[in-house]
């Protein structure tokens, strides 16, 4: 149990998938303009990542290894992730149409999001078993969601301050991301 807690703290704070490993920038900058979309996106990513982590692990262990085709790992994972994201998109569209509108183009972009593929591969590389993979995926996604929510909170306030013209928009977003990443690097050595 303690291991799991440590793993989760590591995944959320110390090795934050976005702020430390720098995977998953696109939806980070694109969706973090308002709190509602950020939380929605965060939840969507948690759902996708956990499921994806689980299914890719199973595909790897029960299909790729027995058939000696580990080299097809990347293709197989992407196939699974793409299908999964499509599935999630359908579910979101049916159950939460407003969220679907708000996320817009960024929901299907999770497919190509390197964070998802990254976590799936880290699971394999670091040799986690199924339960650990699930926890790790969930925690990484939670870290992603945390970073996203933090960013949205800050960016919502940008509308009220006087930003110099050359910095408006994405520029100040990236600068802020860098500063948050710097702050998070303070967690190094925690675990």
């Amino acid at each position, binding site marked *: 149990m303690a291991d799991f807690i440590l793993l989760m703290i590591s995944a959320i704070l110390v090795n934050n998938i976005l702020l430390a490993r720098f995977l998953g920038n696109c939806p980070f900058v694109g969706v973090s303009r308002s709190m509602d979309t950020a939380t929605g996106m965060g939840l969507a990513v948690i759902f996708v990542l956990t499921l994806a982590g689980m299914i890719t692990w199973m595909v790897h262990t029960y299909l790729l290894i027995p*058939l000696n085709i580990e080299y097809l790992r990347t293709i197989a994972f992407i196939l699974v992730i793409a*299908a999964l994201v*499509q599935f999630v998109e*359908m579910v979101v569209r*049916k159950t939460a149409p407003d969220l679907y509108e708000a996320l*817009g*183009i960024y929901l299907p972009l999770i497919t190509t999001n390197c964070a998802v593929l990254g976590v799936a591969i880290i699971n394999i590389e670091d040799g986690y078993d199924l339960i650990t993979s699930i926890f790790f995926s969930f925690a990484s996604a939670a870290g992603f969601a945390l970073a996203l929510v933090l960013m949205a909170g800050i960016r919502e306030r940008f509308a009220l301050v006087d930003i110099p013209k050359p910095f408006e928009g994405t520029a100040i977003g990236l600068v802020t991301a860098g500063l948050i990443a710097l702050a998070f690097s303070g967690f190094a050595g925690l675990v």
Partner: protein
Amino acid sequence: MLAGMLAIGGIGIVAALVLGISSKIFYVEVDPLIQEIADTLPGANCGACGFAGCSSCAKAIAKGKAQPDACLSGGPDVALSIATILGVSIEVKEPDIARLGCWYNIEEADTKFTYDGVRDCRAAMMLFSGSKVCDIGCLTLGTCVNACPFGALSMGEDGLPRVNESLCTGCGTCEQICPKGIIRLTSETRRIQHVYTTDECTSPCQRACPAGIDIPEYIHQITVGNYTQALKTIRESNPMPLTCGRVCPHPCEDNCRLSLQDDAVNINHLKRFVSDREMHAPERIGVYKAAPTGKRVAIIGGGPAGLSAAYYLARLGHSPTIFEAMPKLGGMLRYGIPEYRLPKATLDWEIEGILNMGVEVKTNTAMGKDFTIEGLKEEGFDAIFLGTGAWDSRGLGVEGEDLEGVLPGTHFLIDRGLEKDTPVGEKVAVIGGGNTAIDAARTCWRLGAKEVTVLYRRSRKEMPANDIEIEEAGKEGVLFHYLAAPTRLIGKNGKLAQLEYIEMELGEPDESGRRRPVPKEGSEKIIDVDNIIAAIGQFPVTDFLEKDGVSVTRRNTIEVVDEQTGRTNLEGVFAGGDAVTGASIAVAALGAGRRAARSINQYLGGEEVAVPDNAVTAHSDLPTVEELVSVAHSDRVKMPELSVDERAMNFNEVERGLSEEMAQGESDRCLRCGLICYRKEG
């Protein structure tokens, strides 16, 4: 190998099955309209429309939150398809095109310094506003060229950016990025309503023109042989170039920079040249006309002010109706200017062109008698323009004015315009020094008078008539008595027989700055006359306007809040032309009509009726040039005219018009001036 393929294939099939089943379970009803619109859109998800992706844009269009032409990269074709799907007619808004407002590159313009260290105009701006002396000059470093997202701008060989009109979408990126505001979006609709500002490049002639014609541009188009475009440029500011090309006293030429060393460019006759070509061509040149707005405007007065206002309002999509008291349109152009200066056939052709834009006319309808302002508003007119002109004349105020044979100047010429018979005797005296007096004198000569004398109370220098008119009158044998004023009219049997006048000398200046004439005691003289024509001034008639509540000044002109907008004290009522300024020249009325059309357009669109704060006025302090450097001397072309013998006893047009060769030679003389730039040699 096979295992791999099967494995991947297997995953794919399983995924497809799962997705297929879940798509049935999680089925979402999509509005087919949105689907159809989304299919028409390019699907690039570029975000130029401002929405997150093409599907959001489609949804917004279907809900009505976005216009059918929201897709910028799709362009007009996509906009048209979407409009067809929605079942609305898309009013093709005139596309905005970027246009550069500077014509001199770094080599040709005056520069303060040379510095090659900057590669971007915005950076160059931070270095003493760039290397050009002129505050407004293009810095030619190509920031706009790089910024254009559609690749419509390129650097020309002359060092200035060139716009590819077929690629330009009017997005405005170049306008936003240019640090000097040189490259701007423009369209015919915008240019019709344009008022020159101090932050754009204008030439002295352009600013002197009361109608604001872009003179260097149209002369340039003549030089390259593009007569159609030259005429379109003129018509953006002046709808009556045929008329002005014949009668205008050309304030532009008085301000021509070339006159610093040679004679001014013959701007006016070049205008006549291109407009004559259209008159003799098989078809009229088409201009852009906006989609109908459904707003009706009543134009009181069919003279140049009213015709100009009607023309531009029609071009902007409104529905003007002209109410004219006389039997025909034209105002003073028909009922004041004689045939040999402005043939009626020419005037009719020009007016027909204006009416073709979609103007309704009601002649023989006088305000006060047949309708009132209140009545018009009740009839459903959304705005009113007053262009009633200055038709009242004054008597001489001397004994004997009621004798037979005394003709008030305006009535004489009005009768000529009405094509009535106006016989005159052998000896005619015309009192006055303005164009009306000269017109009357030259008309009498053509009607057979043997001796025509013009009496003017000041000297030749103070005479307000056009110099060319006075010269031509002299050639035709009209005699001039300067410093003479009538004192008594002597009759025989109720008919005028003699005129007594007194000699004057010039004393102190009066309010207009001209020296006041003072009679010389005991210097009365008597001459025999059969007719006297008094042409000593024209004034607006305003009593019928005052009855309707229009505010009138002490000088009996319509009071406007400011001359640039033409607003009166009444809501929705605008005024311009002679009725506001007092008797003036045709081009001033044409300019006032255009500015009133601009104001009325703003008013009807619910916008504030105003001109820009930095609009150019007579008091604007703009940089200029005192002396010309490196400009070759050149002679001004002379307008061919009928000889005096050919003119006698007929009203044929005296000026014959320039040939193409003469026009080309003259347009070459133009220096294409900017604020301080001009074409130098070498």
